[in-house]
């Protein structure tokens, strides 16, 4: 059985070997691979700044770097991780690769725009990396005025231009997905036969398309403020810095949902596949994605409870912020119900899915703490907030991304990675993550503010725990790079459907043809029909 499996003769990876055949490709799968490489580079650059932060905080004194350098470290960490890793991560890599085959299409609606979005991402990245090499930027990733407009002497404008440009990459990806999902579905692929991964990306794309232009215009206003001396946000000249915060968070809060929604989509696929059951409450899970996208747009001011907004506005925003918990809980409970009486197996992607469930729950529930007005005043700008959003962005989004990458890696490359090392890595990531960030809840609650490079002695134990956990976490992230690269040459041939999963993408060969399907598939079943799928023997190590 095993030696019958061979890598197919023709596939998208060997359809042209020249550099040009990659750089000028319109194949969504090749573009996804190039995105994968680009964001991986950015992830490790952003990670290095994180290493710097944890090294500095290993001791209470500010002895590793100066306060100014530390400011640059956390700023560059945030800017690179948010705008150049998390936002493109799942959509641009997994979404790009998988949405067309999942709906039975040959490509995205606008292949050329897809390629352009990658180039735009690169140009934005170059600006930001230039700013980093030229001395960095120290405003925090939030660029609050008036400091960013008149106070800081660092490279605010190149960084802002980089983010502005990269935003268009995100907009074009979202636009492409929306049109593709509307117009490129195969015959019989109705809206309620779409995989939940596609629903999640549809919701994400709406947020990208509606939110990103607002950060773009905010950056333009910041740039003219700083560059030409306009006074729109300058309180000394009648301007209002709080307006900047409103505009900034109008995008940057929904941006959190750009990061987490695709991970929720991945999660639905993983849970269903590895418990071999139809997802429980399909339409609730699908609509909860849209609900999160909609609610996400009306909660932004919960970042500004202490910025001087009116008490009544704060109460409304507090209430609305709580309501985001409803669709999030709908998802979590539906996944649990899917697991119930399922034939659960523990392959690596499922380990990530389990990790995701726990971390997302902690991250989400601590979000309720922060949405509570009184408690937010106590923990605002402390490590409690830092821990909370890392549970969502790292524990949620990156766990989802890694789970998805492990799940679809055999589809993308045709080969399996080492099951043993990938399990080790999944466990290291989970343990390392918790050891890093759980102590930050405690230290934040005890009153340690964020963004300082020194702290009182009594916080050292918790900070050392955090730095130690970060070491484990970092190694857990390096390990996949090694075994993924190893698998490209030595990995066992996976065959078209190594997990016995039900989606259309598993009916393609692995790696797929450039045109995905030899003939356009006709869909006549519901998604996740595991009762009817003949479970083949799995070809695992």
């Amino acid at each position, binding site marked *: 059985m095993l030696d019958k499996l061979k890598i197919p003769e023709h596939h998208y990876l060997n359809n042209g070997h020249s550099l040009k055949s990659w750089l000028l490709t319109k194949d969504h799968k090749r573009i996804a691979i190039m995105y994968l490489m680009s964001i991986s580079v950015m992830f490790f650059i952003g990670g290095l700044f994180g290493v710097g932060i944890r090294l500095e905080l290993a001791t209470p004194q500010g002895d590793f770097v100066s306060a100014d350098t530390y400011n640059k470290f956390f700023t560059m960490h945030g800017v690179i991780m948010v705008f150049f890793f998390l936002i493109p991560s799942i959509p641009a890599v997994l979404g790009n690769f998988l949405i067309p085959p999942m709906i039975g299409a040959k490509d995205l609606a606008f292949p050329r725009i897809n390629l352009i979005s990658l180039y735009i991402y690169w140009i934005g990245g170059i600006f930001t990396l230039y700013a980093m090499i030229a001395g960095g930027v120290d405003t925090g990733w939030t660029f609050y005025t008036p400091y960013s407009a008149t106070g800081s002497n660092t490279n605010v404008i190149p960084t802002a231009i980089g983010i502005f440009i990269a935003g268009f990459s995100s907009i074009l990806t979202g636009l492409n997905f929306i049109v593709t999902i509307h117009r490129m579905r195969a015959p019989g692929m109705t809206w309620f036969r779409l995989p939940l991964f596609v629903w999640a990306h549809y919701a994400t794309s709406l947020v990208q398309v509606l939110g990103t232009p607002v950060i773009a215009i905010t950056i333009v206003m910041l740039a003219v403020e700083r560059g030409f001396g306009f006074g729109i946000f300058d309180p000394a000249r009648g301007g209002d810095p709080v*307006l900047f915060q409103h505009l900034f968070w109008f995008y940057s809060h929904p941006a959190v949902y750009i990061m987490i929604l695709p991970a929720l989509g991945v999660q639905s696929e993983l849970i269903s596949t590895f418990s071999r059951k139809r997802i429980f409450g399909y339409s609730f899970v699908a609509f909860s994605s849209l609900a999160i996208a909609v609610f996400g747009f009306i909660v932004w001011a919960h970042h500004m409870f202490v910025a001087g907004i009116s008490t009544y506005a704060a109460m409304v925003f507090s209430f609305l912020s709580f309501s985001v918990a409803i669709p999030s809980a709908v998802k979590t409970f539906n996944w649990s119900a899917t697991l119930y009486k399922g034939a659960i197996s523990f392959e690596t992607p499922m380990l990530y899915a389990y990790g995701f469930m726990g971390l997302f729950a902690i991250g989400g529930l601590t979000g309720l703490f922060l949405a509570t007005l009184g408690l937010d005043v106590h923990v605002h700008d402390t490590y409690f907030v830092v821990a909370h959003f890392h549970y969502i962005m790292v524990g949620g989004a990156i766990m989802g991304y890694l789970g998805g990458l492990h799940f679809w890696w055999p589809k993308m490359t045709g080969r399996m990675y080492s099951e043993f090392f990938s399990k080790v890595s999944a466990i290291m990531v989970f343990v390392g993550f918790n050891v890093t960030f759980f102590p930050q809840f405690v230290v934040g609650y005890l009153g340690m503010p964020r963004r300082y490079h020194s702290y009182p002695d009594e916080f050292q134990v918790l900070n050392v725990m955090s730095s130690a956990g970060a070491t484990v976490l970092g190694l857990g992230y390096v390990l996949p790079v090694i075994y993924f690269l190893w698998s490209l040459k030595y990995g066992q041939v996976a065959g078209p459907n190594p997990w016995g999963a039900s989606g259309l993408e598993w009916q393609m060969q692995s790696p797929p043809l450039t045109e995905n399907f030899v003939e356009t598939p006709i869909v006549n079943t519901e998604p996740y029909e595991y009762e009817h799928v003949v479970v083949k023997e799995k070809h695992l190590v």
Partner: protein
Amino acid sequence: MSNAVVHADSHGQAHAAHHPALQHHFDTMGQQKEAAVIGMWVFLLTEILFFGGLFMAYMLYRTWYFDAFAEASRSLDIFWGALNTAVLIASSLTMAMAVRCAQVNKRMATVNWLILTMILGAVFLGVKVIEYSDKFEHHHVPGLNYKWAAEHPSTALGAGAPAPVAGAGHAEPAAAAAPHRELSLSPEQLQLTTQIYFSLYFTMTGLHALHMIIGIGLMSVITWMAWKGKFDAEYYTPVEMSGLYWHFVDIVWIFLFPLLYLVERP
């Protein structure tokens, strides 16, 4: 199986006469066009939100500093603004004519209407240059040399209340509702708050002008394609898409004109 690898001839088996503009991943011209139309409308939606941030800022400061906005707005020349409005509306008409002509296979008429649209766009930008240079002369460009001169008679009526500007920005429009009323802002406050008006004026009209320039660039490509005979009744999507874009830019101006020029005119 072979059509997966050999792209060139994989179409055309079922229908020998595929339209040359049909891309390989679409099944029909209708599907391809619908995709483009939805894509363009989604793009215009992003544009609305892009300008939306500026309109938000405008709304806030106009409420806070109404008198300053009215004062500063009166310093704009309504003649140029009205002329430009007329020019842009005319250009929307010529653009619509171009789309129609493309639709009914009139190649040269399409080209001519497109050229006329570009000329009208250029006229608009020319007028904008006149207006901008006027602002430079009068030190109405925010930044280093900004100076709100009391050359307009009504400015001298400043009430002279020494309230600080920062934070106290809640100028109450109700307090100053009478005709020929006194201004609620001191000259110092006017110096600062009219600057906010002009900051918004330049950002909004500047971005609008940038969109016009992009539109003219886009249209010159489309004109060239039309000249080459790339469009026919079955395929004129690029003409229609640049038309949608042009109308959008036009509509933005329809909002900018009253908001910037007509805040409060006698």
